[in-house]
């Protein structure tokens, strides 16, 4: 005899049974989610003593431990892990000042610029590696030699910049490195965007071409440096050996890796030989992976995490999070967010080449309303241009501060350029030609203002904002056909240069949780516009020169150069700007010293202490 459930299932048919089962599970989830009691929760901190557990971000788990980051592995999950063991030469940003060099977290004294800003001297602090040897200038030149031979593999490489713009790097004594530059550079830019990415690596342990081979000076030749990089990168990708590989046990940071499991769980323990000023105060730091942000939030409310985050869909639940024993802490990256336009598309390329159409596309994006209604008034801030709105810097031009949202203005722009807007449907070009009141080059009579817009799947907030964008655009005669695709699929279609872009996409929103993170409080446009994934904009000479000016202007003219660059970009709107979200973290009330650093959003658990 079949059990009752099977008989019931048989009578209903499999599909009905499935539908009912799914709905019952959903209903039970609702009841569970809405009825959880704060009184039943227990904080992990209290039960685990000095073990602090933090949720890994929804964007993925660490997959490469080697601190010479390749483009494919340039994720916050990786850098946050790497920086615990191998800090960068300089960490930019303190809890109070985003632009300042963070002394306790930096391995060197502030750089000294000389010879008209064409030479920089960097003096290392007296740190030691965990194997007992001293951190020396050789460890910096080791990194630079590897970089020189493998520059295109480096995530932060932009043609013309580091290492190309550095004529030489020389060890002067045991602790000082002198960089000679190919011209004068803006010290703020060179420190924040170049020196801050250098990671001293233990030459005495890593300068080898194979696991069995001896340590040598292979980095001094190009072939040797390539072989060393290949060896280290291969080892870095082998996640199964993170806890046991002797390479990764030689660290100068505050932490050593103890355990890594295939699902992305990481356990770090204090580096007992750490010579920095901020010694770890807890026994262990764990990073816990989750398959979805809902699962993470559930664990957070259940008291199973010491540090977690509130998913964008649940921002209205801030009070519930506080009731569960957490305090909300925002972490804001130095980032902007935009929809990318495909200038190479044979279908919409001629359309997006027209400035007035790009302006119209920006005019129908209602960011303030989206933040207010969809993000419950928090979770993001408006972004109308290439200079991040938050944290505040002196680089934003006044023109970027005004919301462009104005549907009437968009309609007026289109009508004045020869488009007829019907009461329902796409605008149609009725005056083709290249005159000032005509549609523009390459746009034939009868061409409609229709675009496909693909955005990253799996985000309720993003779907809602794109629905709103489509709705507002339709009032100006712009038809946006929405579709969703996984993140990797979208990024795979967009390479950033006309020669390799897939012609199929027209407008892409790769910005869900992957906005343009400058990684520096000095947000110049080189890495964003020139040759990196995401933007397809054919950079004109004028923009090129403005970007160069931001990198080379003397300190006294830094703000002027940045504002000139910002103004030009706003006036030409190469992309469609959209909300930049921030992360609302939840930190256990029993934990103190937790700071999310503004530039990277990373934490340094040596600051943590249990109250």
């Amino acid at each position: 005899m079949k059990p009752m459930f099977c008989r019931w299932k048989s009578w209903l048919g499999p599909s009905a049974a499935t539908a009912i089962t799914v709905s019952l599970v959903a209903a039970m989830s609702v009841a569970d989610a809405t009825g959880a009691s704060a009184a039943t929760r227990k904080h992990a901190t209290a039960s685990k003593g000095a073990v602090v557990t933090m949720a890994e971000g929804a964007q993925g788990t660490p997959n490469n431990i080697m601190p010479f980051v390749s483009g494919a592995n340039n994720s916050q999950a990786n850098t946050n892990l790497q920086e615990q063991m191998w800090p960068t030469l300089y960490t930019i940003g303190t809890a109070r000042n985003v632009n300042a060099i963070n002394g306790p977290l930096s391995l060197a004294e502030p750089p000294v610029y000389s010879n008209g800003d064409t030479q920089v001297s960097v003096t290392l602090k007296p740190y030691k590696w965990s194997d007992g040897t001293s951190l020396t200038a050789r460890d910096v030149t080791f990194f630079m030699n590897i970089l020189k031979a493998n520059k295109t593999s480096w995530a932060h490489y932009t043609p013309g910049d580091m290492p190309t713009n550095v004529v030489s790097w020389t060890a002067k004594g045991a602790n000082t490195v002198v960089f000679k530059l190919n011209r004068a550079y803006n010290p703020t830019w060179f420190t924040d965007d170049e020196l801050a990415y250098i990671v001293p690596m233990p030459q005495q342990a890593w300068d080898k071409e194979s696991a069995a081979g001896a340590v040598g000076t292979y980095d001094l030749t190009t072939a040797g440096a390539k072989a060393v990089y290949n060896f280290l990168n291969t080892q870095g990708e082998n996640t199964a050996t993170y806890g046991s590989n002797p390479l990764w046990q030689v660290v100068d940071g505050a932490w050593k890796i103890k355990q890594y499991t295939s699902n992305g769980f990481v356990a770090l323990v204090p580096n007992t030989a750490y010579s920095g000023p901020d010694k770890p105060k807890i026994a262990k730091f764990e990073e816990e992976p989750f398959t979805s942000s809902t699962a993470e939030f559930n664990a957070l409310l259940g008291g199973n995490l010491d540090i977690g985050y509130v998913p964008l869909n649940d921002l209205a639940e801030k009070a519930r999070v506080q009731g569960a024993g957490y305090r909300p802490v925002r972490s804001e990256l130095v980032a902007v967010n935009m929809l990318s336009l495909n200038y190479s598309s044979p279908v919409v390329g001629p359309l997006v080449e027209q400035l007035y159409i790009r302006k119209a596309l920006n005019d129908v994006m209602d960011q303030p309303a989206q933040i207010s209604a969809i993000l419950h008034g928090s979770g993001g801030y408006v972004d109308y241009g290439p200079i991040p709105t938050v944290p505040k810097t002196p680089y934003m031009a006044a023109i970027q501060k005004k919301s462009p949202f104005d549907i009437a203005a968009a309609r007026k722009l289109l009508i004045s350029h020869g488009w007829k807007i019907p009461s329902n449907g796409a605008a149609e070009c009725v005056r083709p030609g290249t005159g000032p009141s005509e549609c523009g080059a390459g746009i034939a009579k009868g061409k409609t203002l229709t675009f496909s817009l693909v955005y990253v799947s799996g985000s309720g907030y993003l779907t809602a904002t794109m629905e709103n964008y489509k709705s507002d655009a339709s009032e100006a005669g712009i038809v946006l056909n929405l579709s969703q695709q996984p993140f990797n699929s979208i990024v795979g279609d967009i390479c950033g240069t006309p020669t390799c872009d897939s012609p199929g996409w027209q407008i892409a929103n790769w910005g869900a949780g992957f906005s343009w993170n400058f990684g520096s409080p000095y947000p110049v446009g080189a890495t964003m516009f020139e040759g990196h994934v995401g933007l397809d904009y054919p950079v004109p000479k004028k923009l090129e020169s403005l970007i160069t000016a931001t990198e080379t202007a003397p300190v006294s003219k830094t703000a002027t150069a940045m504002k000139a660059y910002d103004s030009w970009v706003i006036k030409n709107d190469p992309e469609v700007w959209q909300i930049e979200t921030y992360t609302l973290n939840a930190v256990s009330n029993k934990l103190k010293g937790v700071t999310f650093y503004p530039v990277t959003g990373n934490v340094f658990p040596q600051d943590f202490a249990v109250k």
Partner: protein
Amino acid sequence: MSQATALTPSDVSGAPRSATTPVRVRAARLLRVIGRWCRSHKLGFAGLVVIVLLTLFSFVGPLIYHTDQVHTHLTEVNLPPSAIHPLGTDNVGYDILGRLMEGGQSSLEVGFAAALLASCIGTLWGAISGYVGGWVDALMMRVVDSAFAIPPLLLLLLLGTIFTPSVPELIVVLGLVSWLITARLVRGDSLSLRTREYVQAAMSAGAKRPRVVVRHVIPNALGTIVVQSTFEVANAILLLASLSFLGLGPAPPAANWGAMLSNGLNYIYAGYWWQIYPAGLAIVITVLAFNMLAESVRDSFETRLARV
């Protein structure tokens, strides 16, 4: 043994057919037959009533209850049920009752059309395979077996990333993954039917194979086809809901029950129950109704077959 034929009112009642019977008498007889069927198949009748009501709700409802399901209304997001919005609003301000009606349209359209397509393909495939037999049958059935080995949802997810999902495309895609059971069942009937006297007689009289399949084999497998088609409607609706739940259904602002359910679950902690229960219940009730109807129709055929 008698041949299996499609269920007709006269078959059920047992009354003789007559070409000269007045229309009014035939209509009355039809009503009596339907009434008798409804009394003897209460679950099926309930399912039929629910399907009719859902169809009216989805297609006639929007004519009476006017809502804007194209433009977002950010000043009215996440409102609980009220006199103005009886089932509340969602996260971009769409009225949920109106959206439920719009979603019902696509669910029923896709369900019926995909089931029809699947039935056509499955019927032809199964009838040809069973009737022709030999290596053709072996080959065609191995194709079916191979296709069965691929989970339909996996295939749909793959196709969903290749094509931009629209209602016509979803109909084709769902139809193409749903014909296998029909093909197998019809093939079974066909194997039996090809040995019947009237099929042999038709062949002896010089009827071509396609004619025999279309005029004799398929009509006599109609009972199986109708029952399976009804199940296929329910399956297609559920598959559509699953796809939409995963974000691979028709793109916004097209309304869909699966997408509504998925969207509502994003706000599970906010307690916006009105964004979850209506769509969930709509899916359950619709699928249940079609299954109840299909079971009753199958019972009817089985009873009749047992009688003959």
